[in-house]
């Protein structure tokens, strides 16, 4: 196929979204070494998964501040995923351990304030777990899609 044809054939109008469908945005904060690589592996393995997710890469789970979750909700995310190396596998030794304490506490606080905890997901996905990445994203997306319009966060205007 000529380059020109390829361009033409694939030209789409980005703005088109299926009318009436609920198309929630999901933001995923992932560590560079495990989950980001795991997501890359899903790509090189040509696995298919839901396209609602937007990944933000950070060096380590230890760098993923729970407050990013708040910011993601503030800016319109309907679900937020935090994912990093399995316990014991942290590239930086202990970033995920330190953060796990914070997440447990922060999540608790969010729940107490009435944030629907179904909207906040945490996972450990290693660089070899492309398939786990796919299932985490698909399941989370399905869950978020199943609760349209339910606004139970306290960070966006009602």
């Amino acid at each position, binding site marked *: *196929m000529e*380059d020109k044809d*390829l*361009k033409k054939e*694939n*030209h*789409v*109008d*980005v703005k*088109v979204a299926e009318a009436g469908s609920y198309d929630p*945005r999901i*933001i995923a904060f992932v560590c560079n070494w495990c989950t*980001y*690589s795991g*997501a*890359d592996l*899903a*790509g*090189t393995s*040509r*696995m*298919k*998964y839901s*396209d609602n997710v*937007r*990944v*933000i*890469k*950070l*060096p*380590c789970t*230890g*760098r*993923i*501040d729970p407050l*990013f979750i708040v*910011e*993601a909700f503030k*800016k*319109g*995310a309907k679900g937020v995923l935090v994912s990093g190396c399995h316990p014991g596998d942290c*590239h*930086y*030794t*202990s*970033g995920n351990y*330190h*953060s796990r304490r*914070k997440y447990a506490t922060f999540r608790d606080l969010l729940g107490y304030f009435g944030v629907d905890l179904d909207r906040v997901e945490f996972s450990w996905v290693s660089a070899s777990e492309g398939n786990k990445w*796919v299932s985490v994203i698909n399941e989370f997306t399905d869950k978020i899609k199943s609760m349209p319009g339910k606004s139970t966060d306290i960070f966006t205007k009602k």
Partner: protein
Amino acid sequence: MARIGVFVCWCGSNIAGTVDVEKVREEAAKIPGVVSALDYKYMCSDPGQNSLRNIIKEKNLTGIVLAACSPHMHENTFRKAAAKEGLNPYFVEIANIREQVSWVHENKERATAKAVDLMKMMVEKVKRDKPIEDVRVPLNKKALVIGGGIAGIQAALDIANGGVEVILVEKEPSIGGKMIQLDETFPTLDCSSCIMTPKMVEANQHPNIKLYTYSEVEDISGYIGNFKIRIKKKARSVIEKDCTGCGECWNACPMHKNIKSEFNVNLSERTAIYVPFPQAVPLVPVLDRSVCLHFKKGGKCQKCYDACGPKCINFDLQDEIIEETVGAIVASTGYDLMDTSMYGEYGYGKYKDVVSGLQFERLLSASGPTEGVIKRPSDGKTPQTIVFVQCVGSRDPEKGVPYCSKVCCMYTAKHAKLFAHKVHGSQSYVFYIDIRSTSKGYEEFVRSTMEQDGAIYLRGRVSKIYEDDGKLIVKGADTLSGNQVEIAADMVVLATGVIPKQGSDKLAQMLGISYDKYGFFTESHPKLRPAESSTAGIFLAGMAQGPRDIPESVVSGSAAASKILGLFSKNEYEVEGTIANVNESTCVACFYCQRVCAYNAISKKEIKDRSGKLIKVVANVNPGLCTGCGACVNACFSKSIDVKGFMDDQIYAEIKALAI
């Protein structure tokens, strides 16, 4: 004002087949601050890189975004290309629209929309990139090796032969470690001291090696290139430089009963002033003050002093503190054997003729207490039947450790073989769980022990050992035949498992390196960086990392040495500049950052005014140690610390880009 260039790669049809690259480019052009947007078939190709470089030049870009494959693929390629045009290489951001878009999504509209989003996020991120300079740390080209076993000696020799000064610190009076205690080595059966002694001597005489025996590292501070070391040289009570090693002193010592020889694993006795073994390096005795009559009875006895020709015995010598500065460290502290007395059913400690593998080595050794004739400790008779029990403590999560000690299968085979060679007509039995003989010549070695030397291998565990009429009755299971077996043996040798050297956890804490739950030092990466610790400038070698045999220990010593020689081949150590950065004006010195830092990279810094008065204390990041993981950022309440390249502001901008 930002001048951003966006380059959308087709990756042939890999991206362009699923993502409307032209649309991505059009959307990019609309973003304020984007002054150039281009799509191209293969951005990573030479023409692709050239057009990128040309546009950087033409448009005087302040940042570039590649919407292309994963940053793990080509981030470096594009950074280098940008750097060639004088752009800070960290002003390059990658939107991963291949691995995380085109290859995983099928709906073109939606894949394109996602690609546009990812591109926008990176545009907003790159707008907020700050120039990052890689950090250069000056190097003190001197190395410290802690532990003078085979791994440490090998490391020290390799480094020294590379022309670099080495300080070798050994806790015991002599270097040599565990290897010098061994008799012959598997699978070649060359004698351990024959191959070890020349190495020890070489280390002692090498002009680039400064040897501190009977010494311990007391304190370490600093970081790669600049570690400050305090070494405690324990008082030997012998003036080293004057001693000739003649032996008059220990021959004169009246204390020759009841002091067990450490070197012979309690199978013989030594004097209060002693050398651990005749080939000790240095051949200078040590006076053990805890048992010496002079010290115990108020200075009356001085027989050794009287006997000494050069008069080099000095009872008043004190511990000495030596301070050194080095640029790199090798931690090769070796191992201990597990205490097997918890296996009451084996009777170790109770029956004299139940010995450990290392004791058996000493019984085999020509330099050992029996001069190489195998004799029972109880009555000195030569045993005709020996039962060897493998996996004592190893692979036993209940009572011992869950890991495999790796060397026992081989040394047990060696013991059985040597036993057969030395005592003709004898019989050995080996209780094993599995035979692990996976290196060159190992399997053949075990086979020959079984087939040529007649050792009977029984797969199963020993349940009980007891004494009966001068014999040790060994009861166990042969799981292959399903029979219970009972063997009347003259001796039992336990292949005790290995554990990290006592105190290695303390040393690890001092060094700021991580260790596993057993106390073995952990590698920076178990596969790709096996010679490096988690802390820059500190390298690992030998059994301190985990069970391994002699060739592996030698390899690891050499590996650590070559890492250090590589490091020292430059005058400065270069670290990626993506490290933490403290805002000193808002830091309140709560030091949560320090608590969560896995690399000891945070220290306290005092800010003083011109008159020297303390204004405040703040956190300080050591660029040589920081890895840029960002745990400190997460720990900081006032947000006074940030990581270059992943600043809070940039993360927020990425999130915000999605809301636009």
